């Protein structure tokens, strides 16, 4: 049986009127409210391809036509009940009753005219949108870039966003943090390229809430804070101390890329609830920034608290494994203090560790190491 999950609300008026959904096979549906109940609402759903959905969102297709002539000749009914808003079972509708269909002439409203392309894309695509402008030497005469440089730049930007987002999560309560932990909340998608050196258009993977807010904006704001200090390396380093070693390592690698490939990086971003923000790191700024970061060894580590039960302790090699209660994942590390007397499996401990972000020799891969400084039984 197909099970549909709400993806994005398209029309809201005293509740969700029209939304897009996905099934377990990633097929996209458009669903329209046709019956409102005390505890649950019923929606009529038709499968829809992304190009056709795009035309509907641009106000070029009548909603009635989508249901009267679905691309796949199937219609479904779902019930959004009090206890089941995700994975709603979809029942096939043999024949859509006339009173269920919208009247002719329901077209989506066009988006408001906006000044910049990035704002327009954020409004029409309903995502946080980032335009990254790469200026490598090979793009000076034509919009071209070496594949390796392009791949590396995209990867570095994504890594920076990921660590900025994870830092933002730290300030949230557990429930909210758990809700946002999955990677799709910080994952970017590249959806277009435009000329003017080499412009990559990226967007958030998840749609905004009804206020137009996309959580990835909180990560982008943090990146803005650092990049806006590109002319002031000492202040930028100070800001990086707040953002932790993972972000600092990611930023350092981005600066190294800019410097080594002679590729300035400018970016602008906007979200449905946010006006445009612009920043740039030039090749001449990247070198002193990189130097300032490498000179501050404390940027490579921070003190973290981990609570959980030990699964392994080796007193001789001074190594340990513990299942973190916060993430429900096992973490391991070494110790600078004696581990004698620690009990595995049964006791809960609070470990105070130094988390160091180190670079793997040869591959340059980021390695995270935990060094136990102190602990207490809880």
């Amino acid at each position, binding site marked *: 049986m197909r099970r549909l999950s709400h993806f994005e609300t398209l029309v809201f*008026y005293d509740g969700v009127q029209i939304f897009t959904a996905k099934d377990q096979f990633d097929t996209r549906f458009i669903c329209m409210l046709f019956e*409102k109940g*005390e*505890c649950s609402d019923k929606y009529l759903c038709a499968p829809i391809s992304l190009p056709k959905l795009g035309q509907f969102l641009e106000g070029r297709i009548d909603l009635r036509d989508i249901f009267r002539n679905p691309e796949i000749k199937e219609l479904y009914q779902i019930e959004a009940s009090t206890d089941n808003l995700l994975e709603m079972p979809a029942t096939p509708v043999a024949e859509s009753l006339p009173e269920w269909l919208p009247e002719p002439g329901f077209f989506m409203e066009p988006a408001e005219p906006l000044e910049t392309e990035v704002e327009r894309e954020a409004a029409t695509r309903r995502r946080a949108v980032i335009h990254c402008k790469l200026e490598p030497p090979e793009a000076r005469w034509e919009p071209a870039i070496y594949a390796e440089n392009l791949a590396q730049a995209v990867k570095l930007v994504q890594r920076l966003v990921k660590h900025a987002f994870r830092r933002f999560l730290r300030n949230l309560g557990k429930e909210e943090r758990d809700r946002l932990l999955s990677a799709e909340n910080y994952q970017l998608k590249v959806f277009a390229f435009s000329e003017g050196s080499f412009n990559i258009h990226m967007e958030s993977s998840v749609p905004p809430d009804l206020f137009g807010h996309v959580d990835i904006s909180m990560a982008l704001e943090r990146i803005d804070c650092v990049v806006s200090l590109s002319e002031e390396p000492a202040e930028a380093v100070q800001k990086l101390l707040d953002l932790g070693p993972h972000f600092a390592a990611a930023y350092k690698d981005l600066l190294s890329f800019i410097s080594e490939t002679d590729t300035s990086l400018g970016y602008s971003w906007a979200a449905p609830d946010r006006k445009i923000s612009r920043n740039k790191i030039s090749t001449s700024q990247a070198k002193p920034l990189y130097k300032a970061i490498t000179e501050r060894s404390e940027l490579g580590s921070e003190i973290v608290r981990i609570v959980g039960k030990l699964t392994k302790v080796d007193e001789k090699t001074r190594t340990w494994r513990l299942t973190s209660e916060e993430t429900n994942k096992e973490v391991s590390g070494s110790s600078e203090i004696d581990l004698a007397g620690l009990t595995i499996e049964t006791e809960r401990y609070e470990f105070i560790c130094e988390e160091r972000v180190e670079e793997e020799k040869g591959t340059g891969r980021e390695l995270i190491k935990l060094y136990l400084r102190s602990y207490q039984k809880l």
Partner: protein
Amino acid sequence: MSMADEKQLWAEDLPDGCPPNDALSVDGQSFFRLVESIPPLERDFWSQRKLYPLKRFNTSECIARACSLTTTLDACNRLKKLPVHSHKRVIQIRFTTDCGVGKRTGREPSHFSWWCRNGFNPIPCCNELL
């Protein structure tokens, strides 16, 4: 103003941080709304949360406790093409003073969420539009 005083400003019990800080006063402005009857009844201006206390909504609690308005007549007439709204009537509501705050919400530019001030009666501010 204490949190308790702040909560008493609104016609409905709102969650913390609601209405959002950037919601603006609607005083002196005109909006449109679909209602069940003419003249409208008090419950025509209740939030979804007040109408359906047991329901879970695929939106934030703050928006579930707001009342939808549109900035254009066309938007309301278009909503009437949907099966659950086809029987409704369109009214224009001209806000006077101390009526509450609103914010553009949702994908469509014409949609507003309105959080009504405690003690404000919208019914005398309504005119039916045919």
